[in-house]
């Protein structure tokens, strides 16, 4: 499987992803799954600005995941798939069927109503319940902001 990292990160494409993970994984492509960004040319331009030449960026809606997941996983280049919120993540898993086995919680930051679970993971109770549900359905959920940090199993932060 060449989608090496499937990551929940509310900043989507940013330094930790492009540099922190992109360099050691030698990433060749990034898939950004977000219905709003998929329909916004200027937002796509904005996200492309943060990506070095040589890394392709694919913008996809949740509905497109089921159609393209096999193609992305068959791509010989290492790839990263990003979602920005728990609901999109849950939609992604549902759309992918049994095609996604492991999720990296990379960054969900503070906003009112969210509780600190880790330094870089803040979740509402509803978001926490949805993540636990994914785990109970057999998806391996760990939190890890950068590759040099330890992958924290969901049982340790929720």
């Amino acid at each position: 499987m060449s989608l090496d990292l499937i990551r929940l990160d509310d900043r989507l494409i940013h330094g930790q992803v492009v540099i922190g993970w992109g360099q050691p994984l030698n990433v060749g492509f990034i898939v950004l799954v977000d219905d709003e960004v998929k329909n916004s040319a200027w937002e796509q331009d904005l996200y492309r600005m943060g990506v070095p030449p040589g890394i392709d960026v694919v913008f996809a809606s949740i509905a497109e995941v089921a159609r393209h997941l096999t193609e992305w996983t068959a791509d010989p280049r290492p790839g990263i798939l990003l979602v920005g919120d728990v609901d999109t993540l849950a939609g992604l898993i549902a759309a992918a069927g049994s095609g996604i086995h492991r999720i990296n919680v990379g960054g969900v930051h503070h906003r009112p109503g969210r509780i600190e679970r880790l330094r870089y993971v803040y979740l509402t109770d509803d978001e926490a319940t949805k993540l636990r549900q994914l785990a109970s359905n057999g998806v391996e959920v760990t939190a890890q902001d950068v590759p040099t940090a330890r992958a924290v199993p969901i049982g340790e932060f929720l």
Partner: protein
Amino acid sequence: MSEATPSPTVGVIVSHAELAAALVGAVRTISGVADALQSVSNEGCDPKSLADRIEAAIGGRPAVLFVDLPGGSCLSSAVRLSRGRGERAVVTGVNLAMLLDFVFHRDLSPTEAARRAVDAGARAIRTPAA
């Protein structure tokens, strides 16, 4: 009744970690100008919280948003808040030289101040003979 004087353009530095605050301190030390710049860190912020921090730092004034990297969360938030708004401009790759120029040209419009800052910042990047 006299017309109100327009507010001078404020510079808002948006960065990772403590870079923005350090730049504000350095500019103050070198220039003696204390009220031209505001710092915003993206530390611990989701995109909405970061946008709120930037908006609070702008405080309704004309503004140039100086961002550390030409991509990522700081730039995304800065561009979202400035898009279609002539009283705001965005500059990436912030450095000390551009800020030192900016604080003495706050009478310019944000667009003009941003162009000038980019020139000053670019001129400061060199490889002097050792």
